[in-house]
């Protein structure tokens, strides 16, 4: 996303053209909703949180400092709003056992993935990401799908840069394990 285009729409909103905000919503709604969903795991809750976050961002648009990207600022609001909600209602997830990593190779996984249809691949990877804890699932989405930098992710999640790096390292391992496990399950079925 081009930050200069975001700034253009922000200036229009602040100048009184409220409808320009819909452009900002359209540009960032998928990622905002995805972040909320990664944290909450319930579609209705994720949609409500994403909407609340967009409204909060609008109400505080005059306080947005252009030092950071608008998306970084917005996603931080989304993440914090979602975290606040999940503290009230924490979803269950099964932790991935990292001890089973030893006998894996990425080539095995890659080979199996290539034999699957695009839809199967997508379902498998999505399921693997969804099995990660909420913060790690969010980091994967921000880092790999939105190409946010470590600094941006640190800003959004409130984690230190080194913590983000460590988490990314662990996430890669966990995803490999989870993909392998899912493939084995598919093979058994």
């Amino acid at each position: 996303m081009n930050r200069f285009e975001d700034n253009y729409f922000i200036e229009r909103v602040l100048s009184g053209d409220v409808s320009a905000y819909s452009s900002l919503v359209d540009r960032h709604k998928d990622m905002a909703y995805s972040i909320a969903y990664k944290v909450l795991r319930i579609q209705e809750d994720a949609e409500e949180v994403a909407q609340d976050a967009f409204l909060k961002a609008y109400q505080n648009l005059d306080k947005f400092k252009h030092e950071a990207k608008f998306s970084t600022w917005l996603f931080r609001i989304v993440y914090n709003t979602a975290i606040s909600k999940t503290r009230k209602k924490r979803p269950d997830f099964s932790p991935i056992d990292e001890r089973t990593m030893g006998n894996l190779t990425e080539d095995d996984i890659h080979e199996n993935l290539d034999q699957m249809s695009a839809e199967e691949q997508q379902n498998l990877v999505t399921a693997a990401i969804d099995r990660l804890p909420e913060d790690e699932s969010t980091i994967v989405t921000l880092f790999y799908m939105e190409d946010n930098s470590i600094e941006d992710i640190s800003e959004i999640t409130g984690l230190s840069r080194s913590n983000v790096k460590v988490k990314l390292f662990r996430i890669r391992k966990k995803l490999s394990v989870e993909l392998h496990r899912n493939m084995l399950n598919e093979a058994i079925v």
Partner: protein
Amino acid sequence: MTTYDSRNEEFIRRIVQRTTLKKPSDDFTGRIMERVMADSLPVKSYISNIYWYLIAGAASVAILMMIFPSWTLFDLDFSAGAASPEKFAGVLNAATHMMSGFTALFTGLKNGSVFLFVAIAMGLLFGIDQLLKHFTPDKHFIF
């Protein structure tokens, strides 16, 4: 990062990018815009708080300069004798001049006094601005 880690990183990136972002409902933007339209317009303050604090600081310095005429940047004199009721009376007198009209004001003022009154006026506006920001929920304030 080892060669294995580097390959694994590239592999994970590739497979994650095969997935797509989750999509909200079709009327997502419309529902947000309904709420946005019902809300008040965020108004950009033309003078940010940092400048207001600088103005308030300048006003304070100007007042000190009036009360302590021997005060300079390099020669601070905050002794009890430096301030006197006569000097306070002088400030009040100047304020009376201001109230009685600009002509009388500008002919009756000493060096630096114009700056003082401008600074005090700006300080008052800052106070009003902050009060309006605090007490008006729709954020329509003068600055």
